[in-house]
């Protein structure tokens, strides 16, 4: 369907895209702050919810907020979460007002529900003092982030017009190689999420858990991490622009290739800063006098960065899959079609 690009609906559309960017952008610091809350085990620093020590969330005195570190972390996490909630509602409203694609509008509703669910989950974790809910809260956060980030993609002009430099022919995109690329990308996205779940199991330990399960999750995390690194390198090699892949797809592939080694280094550093150098390393490679420092800056930053980069990797992988699918299957620009 031909659209008039100057129609009122279309003019409002960039606002939704901008809002999607701001909302997804605000979710990243929210994940960092949530990570710090877990790293410093400050999840129960504020024992009530949705109030903060009896105060309305937004009226908690500034000096009290800033004076106790654990309270600062938890209350800041709640404030950023509330802001993301409002932004998501605004985004959803903008979509319903400005975007004729109903599935995008409904995805906006899904995002609102996801953010709300995530908030309630965090609240219930506090009210019930239940670490299992903290685990689930940690596992669903990257999904919400991915949902919000996918709205950035869906609301972009490039997505709507299917514009991309170096776009190969439909025949090339639909070939076996492209199918293989898509499959690898989907597996990578799934593996990244599995890693997030495994990491959550390792971070949110309850006193009852049998030592066996921790060891199982450690091994899953290590083995899938190695496979993921190899898979991402393989995908990066396949997605080089010069080989006829769309620039957007190749760019996301490069981002994954760039971030994954960093994530592996962060993972190793997370282990070392929490549990020290492993014996196989000190026995066979190098032993140095190193003492883990509980609550130290390195421990907190490295561990939380590992959590945050994992979410970022998921978002990039999901975006990569979306673009691969978009550039392959959708033959016509359909924004505005009902």
């Amino acid at each position, binding site marked *: 369907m031909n659209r008039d690009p100057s129609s009122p609906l279309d003019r409002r559309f960039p606002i939704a895209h901008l809002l999607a960017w701001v909302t997804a952008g605000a979710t990243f610091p929210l994940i960092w702050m949530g990570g710090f809350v877990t790293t410093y085990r400050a999840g129960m*620093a504020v024992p009530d919810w949705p109030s903060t020590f009896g105060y309305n969330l937004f009226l908690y005195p500034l000096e009290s907020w800033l004076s106790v570190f654990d309270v600062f972390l938890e209350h800041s996490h709640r404030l950023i979460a509330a802001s993301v909630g409002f932004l998501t509602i605004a985004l959803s409203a903008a979509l319903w007002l400005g975007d004729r694609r109903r599935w995008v509008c409904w995805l906006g509703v899904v995002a609102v529900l996801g953010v709300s669910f995530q908030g309630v989950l965090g609240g219930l974790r506090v009210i019930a003092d239940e670490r299992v809910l903290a685990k689930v809260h940690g596992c669903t956060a990257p999904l919400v982030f991915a949902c919000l980030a996918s709205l950035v993609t*869906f609301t972009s002009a490039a997505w709507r017009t299917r514009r991309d430099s170096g776009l190969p022919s439909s025949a090339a995109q639909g070939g076996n190689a492209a199918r293989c690329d898509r499959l690898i990308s*989907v597996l990578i996205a799934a593996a990244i999420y599995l890693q997030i779940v495994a990491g959550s199991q390792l971070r949110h330990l309850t006193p009852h858990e049998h030592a*066996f399960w*921790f060891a199982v999750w450690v091994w899953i995390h290590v083995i899938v991490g190695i496979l993921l690194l190899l898979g991402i390198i393989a995908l990066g090699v396949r997605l080089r622009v010069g080989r006829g892949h769309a620039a957007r797809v190749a760019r996301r592939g490069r981002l994954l290739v760039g971030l994954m080694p960093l994530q592996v280094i962060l993972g190793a550093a997370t282990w070392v800063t929490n549990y020290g150098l492993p014996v196989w390393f000190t026995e066979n490679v190098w032993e140095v006098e190193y*003492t883990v420092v509980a609550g130290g800056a390195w421990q907190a930053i490295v561990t939380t960065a590992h959590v945050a980069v994992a979410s970022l990797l998921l978002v990039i992988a999901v975006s990569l*899959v979306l673009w691969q699918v978009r550039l392959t*299957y959708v033959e016509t620009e359909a924004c505005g079609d009902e």
Partner: protein
Amino acid sequence: MALGSPFRSALRVALAVVLLAMGLVAASGCGRTPPIEFPLNLEGREPASVSPKQAAAIRQALTELFGTPNEPRVPDGVPLDLKRLAMAAGAVGGDAQGRQRGLYRRHCVTCHGIAGDGAGPAAAVLDPYPRDYRRGIFKYTSTRSGAKPIRKDLQRTLYRGVPGTAMPSFAHLPSEQAEALIDYVIYLAIRGETELYLLQLVVDEQSYLPPDMDRVMEEGVLPVVESWLLPERNQQEWVVTPPPRPEVDRPEVLAASIAKGRELYLAKDSQCVKCHGPEGDGNGEEKELYDDWNKPKKGVTPEQTAALARLFKLPLQRLRPRDFRKGVFQGGSGPADLYLRICVGIKGTPMPAAGPAPGVPGPLKPDEIWHVVDYVRSLAAGAPTPQ
């Protein structure tokens, strides 16, 4: 609608991933956390050897004496601060003023477990395993053989951590919180030893049920408490303070001390070579070394060892004597730390006390210990071995 197709595809992928992850989480036992209780110490026992009635009687006696993980209590005569115990016990939390509670679960339980059994969720992948407090044995102390640590020893380990292991330094912890944790560790140790006494009384000696609590206090609790108080009260007799180190300010004096240290190290009496090897690389003739927590897991034959494994939470773990050349000393690398390790040994391990004790001369005199310290430090610094 043309764009519905990528969205549906993405949704299918997302759903598949979420289901896979949920399946894995469910497999590892995701459900509402059961109430926190001290597990009964059945290490090394056939679970069926303790009848439900006996187990219930032991639990009841222990609860009567020591309370629960959420509400600890101490019997009369146990010199532990209940306020500090309350701060360390229970669920993790805090108030608007930053007063913390649940310190043990916040900082320690992941490795040391709720009862201080050294078998917390993360324990199986650690080497060495976290300390099991329930025998009341702590490795790095300044007290003589067989004595409990003094509070200062536990403070040292808490603040400095144990280099080369997962035991972190809690140097950032405010002192009142550190003291609360130390109280709680001692509480768990006294409770643990009392539990061992009760198991012996109720299960091994088949005592009448419920056990006579006066007898439990008299024979179980008070002797344990006394063993904790003894070195604190009689520090002159039980605590070793390294004497002033002989001057080694000139290179030739230090070289002579190192040469003397090497001679003593290689001497038969000191027993160093047996485990640490003639080169100090931890490659002595004793290869099968186990600490007191792992010895019960070792059978005479591999089959026996395999059969024993199911009676313990953690698999058998071998000790590795320190390779001095690497310069990593778990009990601290300062001269005074090394002096103490040689003088009083490492408790619960085959590392013996080589220093003198009241009425016992010991293989090494104080000056000689300093020479060995100089020699060990020279190996760590990579100095050439004196011939």
